[in-house]
């Protein structure tokens, strides 16, 4: 019983964190930049993603048909992840520009300078939840169906999901307390790690879908050190998509994204001539007159 509750708690926590982390940063960003009126759009994006996940989950569980082959499902996950990375990367560059502006004397113009469009807000909130939302809904239904014989898993996953929301709130509460320039820099850095993780995991999904090769060529195996069933593994996987046996391509993707973007983010004074070969078309977006 204990294993059933704990094991499923960690699953709920991990799956939940994948969504709540990005949403919390987004909410903190909007509050800090004086754009509270956009919060409704965040909840709208989250709401639609939850409704779609729960709805499709119910369809697949109770009607008992598979809408997609496993390869198709992985492919959809992978593409949704790449799109999510694009949005997040765009937001990272916003963070960078905003941090630069704040070091000057432009505080009064803060609200004008930071115009995060409605599409971006709803899109990011939606993608953050939808990426893993269907899978999580299916897990939840499977646990619920077994609850008459064994309530442990359902309790576990419910508490796990609730905890992830709690952690997200905690992140938001600490983030809004720090000063503005620090906020943009630190959340930017955190988002780079999160985006690199999502990209890495999309490569894993592409490999499982058969689109990319090398799914069983592991770069390294940390499972001796890093027990995948532990609480810290759940946090690392949920927040940063760190897994004990990543493939070579996954690792290349992570490094190939994180290193250039980190450098570009941290180096002072560089403008739009970005040397960073990021997967998103962001260098073209940054100088656009927004």
């Amino acid at each position, binding site marked *: 019983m204990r294993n059933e509750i704990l*094991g499923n708690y960690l699953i709920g926590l991990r799956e939940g964190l994948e969504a709540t982390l990005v949403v919390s940063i987004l909410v903190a960003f909007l509050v800090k930049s004086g754009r509270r009126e956009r919060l409704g759009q965040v909840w709208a994006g989250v709401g639609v993603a939850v409704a779609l996940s729960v709805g499709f989950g119910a369809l697949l569980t109770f009607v008992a048909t598979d809408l*997609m082959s496993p390869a198709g499902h992985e492919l959809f996950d992978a593409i949704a992840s790449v799109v999510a990375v694009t949005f997040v990367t765009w937001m990272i560059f916003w963070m960078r520009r905003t941090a630069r502006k704040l070091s000057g004397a432009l505080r009064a113009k803060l609200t004008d300078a930071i115009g995060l469009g409605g599409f971006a807000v709803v899109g990011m909130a939606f993608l953050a939840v939808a990426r893993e939302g269907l899978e999580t809904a299916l897990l939840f239904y*499977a646990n619920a169906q077994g609850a008459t014989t064994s309530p442990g898993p359902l309790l576990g996953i419910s508490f796990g999901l609730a905890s992830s929301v709690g952690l997200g709130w905690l992140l938001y509460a600490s983030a809004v307390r720090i000063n503005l320039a620090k906020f943009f820099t630190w959340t930017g850095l955190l988002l780079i790690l999160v985006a690199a993780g999502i990209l890495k995991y999309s490569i894993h999904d592409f490999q499982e879908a058969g689109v990319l090769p090398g799914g069983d060529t592991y770069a390294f*195996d940390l*499972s001796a050190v890093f027990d995948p*069933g532990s609480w810290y593994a759940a946090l690392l996987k949920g927040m940063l998509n760190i897994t004990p046996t990543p493939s070579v391509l996954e690792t290349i993707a992570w490094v190939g994204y994180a290193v250039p973007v980190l450098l570009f983010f941290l180096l002072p004074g560089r403008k739009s001539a970005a040397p960073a070969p990021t997967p998103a078309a962001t260098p073209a977006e940054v100088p*656009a007159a927004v």
Partner: protein
Amino acid sequence: MRTFRLFTLITAGVLGAAGLAACSDDDEGGSGNGGEKIAVTATDADCQVAKTQLAAGPYTFVVSNKGSKETEFYIYAAGNKIKAEVEHIGPGVTRDVNVELAEGGYEGACKPGMKGDGIRVTLTVTGKAS
């Protein structure tokens, strides 16, 4: 913001197209209404498949995790090609996966701890689908 708006519409289109493509990707053999139920009991050290000699056709593998770690179940065709999978099966949880199996040799794999090559079980499928 116009470039971003256009960009968003394009990605929405791509995502929609991807969804349709994924939905129609039937020849990977993972979709369908399922068929005869085959129980799979997965523990931390073992992977018991109720029936390993099968006739070609649709099946529903009912995977029960009786172990203490999160597990997943895969069916691989020759060359480690994924025919079916069900992931994130927590301790004490049972999840189903439907698959259409044509004649050939396959391997079922339980992966407690969600890593590595897993505990493999040979599956032999004979004959044509009825």
